[in-house]
């Protein structure tokens, strides 16, 4: 019998600085870990404990895994101090992941905010691996400022990946030297030229952003069953047993973390 609480020994191979607050950790687990886009891992910093993160790398690669992390608390502080060669631990994958089958043949609208683009990058890798399977892949991304735009080096590649793929980004407030779009990510959803009846929207970002993206999507005509949100709750076990990650009667660690809005729309304070 296996001990599901034991963290698999993992080496930090590289640390990529994405923004002043976000780093990507290239991890080499001692045995390959297969995951689906959107599934999450429990990442252990020895002595500090675990926190849940969704890989930002391609789900086709099991030998290495990239996890992109915003510095925001005790464990992420410890993570950000790690150098290549450091030893960490991994448990997982947990959760259902993104609704890949539902996206087939559809117009996928991918909406990210801040470090929320990290789990979505895993989805983007999966979608762009075979763009013909989807009618369209439209990526909308917003960050606070030009420095906080994550994965900048990849935007061009995404835009040019296939004729049916597009990428647009924005920053929240004007900044010196910035010539691109300014405004919250929801402004990218104004005047969408999308086949509404044939589209699925997937969004990840801070709770407040998820709330306004959802309201905007409903306003432009999406129906709740067409909206998938990466929900945030505290997690510990990852196996639907420790109890804390509930949204209504769902445990995000087994039923999510990406939840169809239709299933959770009745939950009070669903966005915190």
């Amino acid at each position, binding site marked *: 019998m*296996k*001990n599901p609480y034991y963290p698999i020994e993992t080496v930090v191979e590289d640390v990529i600085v994405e923004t002043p607050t976000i780093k990507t950790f290239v991890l080499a687990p001692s045995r390959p870990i297969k995951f689906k886009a959107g599934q999450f891992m429990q990442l252990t910093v020895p002595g500090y404990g675990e926190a849940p993160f969704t890989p930002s790398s391609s789900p086709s690669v099991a030998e290495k895994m990239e996890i992109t992390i915003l510095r925001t608390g005790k464990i992420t502080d410890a993570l950000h101090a790690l150098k290549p060669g450091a030893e960490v631990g991994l448990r997982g994958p947990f959760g259902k992941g993104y609704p890949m089958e539902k996206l087939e043949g559809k117009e996928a609208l991918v909406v990210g905010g801040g470090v929320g683009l990290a789990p979505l990058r895993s989805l983007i890798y999966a979608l762009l691996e075979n763009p013909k399977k989807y009618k369209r892949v439209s990526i909308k991304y917003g960050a606070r400022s030009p420095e906080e735009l994550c994965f900048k080096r990849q935007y061009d590649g995404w835009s040019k990946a296939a004729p049916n793929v597009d990428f647009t980004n924005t920053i929240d407030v004007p900044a010196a030297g910035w010539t691109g779009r300014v405004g919250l990510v929801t402004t990218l959803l104004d005047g969408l030229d999308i086949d509404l009846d044939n589209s699925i929207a997937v969004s990840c970002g801070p709770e407040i952003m998820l709330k306004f993206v959802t309201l905007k999507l409903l306003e432009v005509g999406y129906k709740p069953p067409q909206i998938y949100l990466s929900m945030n709750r505290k997690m510990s076990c990852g196996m639907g047993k420790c109890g804390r990650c509930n949204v209504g009667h769902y445990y995000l660690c087994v039923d999510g973390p990406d939840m169809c809005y239709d299933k959770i729309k009745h939950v009070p304070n669903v966005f915190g």
Partner: protein
Amino acid sequence: MYFIDATNFERFLKKLSAQGELFVPVRNAESGKLRLERVENFPLPENLALDGYRTVEPLKTFAQLLRCPVAGYPSTEGDEMPDEKTFPATVIVGARGCDLAALALVDKVETEGEFTDPFYKIRRERMILIGADCGECGASCFCNLLGGKPWPEKGCDISIAKIQGGYLAEAASERGEKLVKESRDLFAETRDAQVKMRDDARGAVVRKLEEQNRSFPKVDAKLTEIVRAALQDEAWDDISARCVECGACTNICPTCYCFLLYDQRADGSHFQRIFTWDSCQVTGYARMAGMLNPRPRLTDRVKHRYYHKYDYLVQSHGAVFCTGCGRCIDTCSAGIDMREALRTIQKTAKAAKV
């Protein structure tokens, strides 16, 4: 069904004690309450109590330890579970109907579905359970409102009922049958009068339960519908107004299973992962990095406990996670009574309809 006299019952327990750590309910002279005590030497303690009602501690404490290490890392054994034989086997005597039903509910969470908690599963499989009839009910007992009975209906290996001169005993599982067979000489045939004695005693406890709980609502599908619909009801503010957020209700609850994992340094470069019970009633339970909290208000947390038991788990695991043991009522220093809370919700729902 068999009859076993007190002397032979003691012999039987002595034999059983070879199978694992033996625990029996004993009565505290001062409070009159029962708790489980480890028996390492015979004779059995003088204050052995197989009458009375459930013990202070719930059965979950034997399967899901309050706090225990679940992993040491890094380790050369990696993620292999330790040998099952390193886990203690237990023989628990005097498990009451409400507690057996509660344990069956926790089993659902811990051992069914995609993941199993192997620590729970191993401890659970190494438990021998001797159920016992309740000889009376406590003031906080309300198993009858949940369709429960003050005797073991299922979930134990052998079921006993204290009657004059000894106990009526019935094997209630394959393992129980085997255990009785192995000590068949200790068990005698029953007489009809003895069975009647037990049934009369059962009837008396049921009547008392019905009497003391008659003003409270029965927990049925209709009530869970009412609770579900009352999610935004302001009555929850009143129910939670007295709560002091101590978490005693969740700790003592036989069906509350929430826990937290935390890590600590063992020595040098070795670390331990510790499993510990946690309570949804305290602020930090669901608080995330950056101080985000889906239930920042105490009302939300108190309400969550009711919703988890009476709605969410009905939807996810097909059962109300309360068996009416009444421990949360006994333990609450603010005097919050779950039965009253449900009655309040039922009343406000009715008022709203008028």
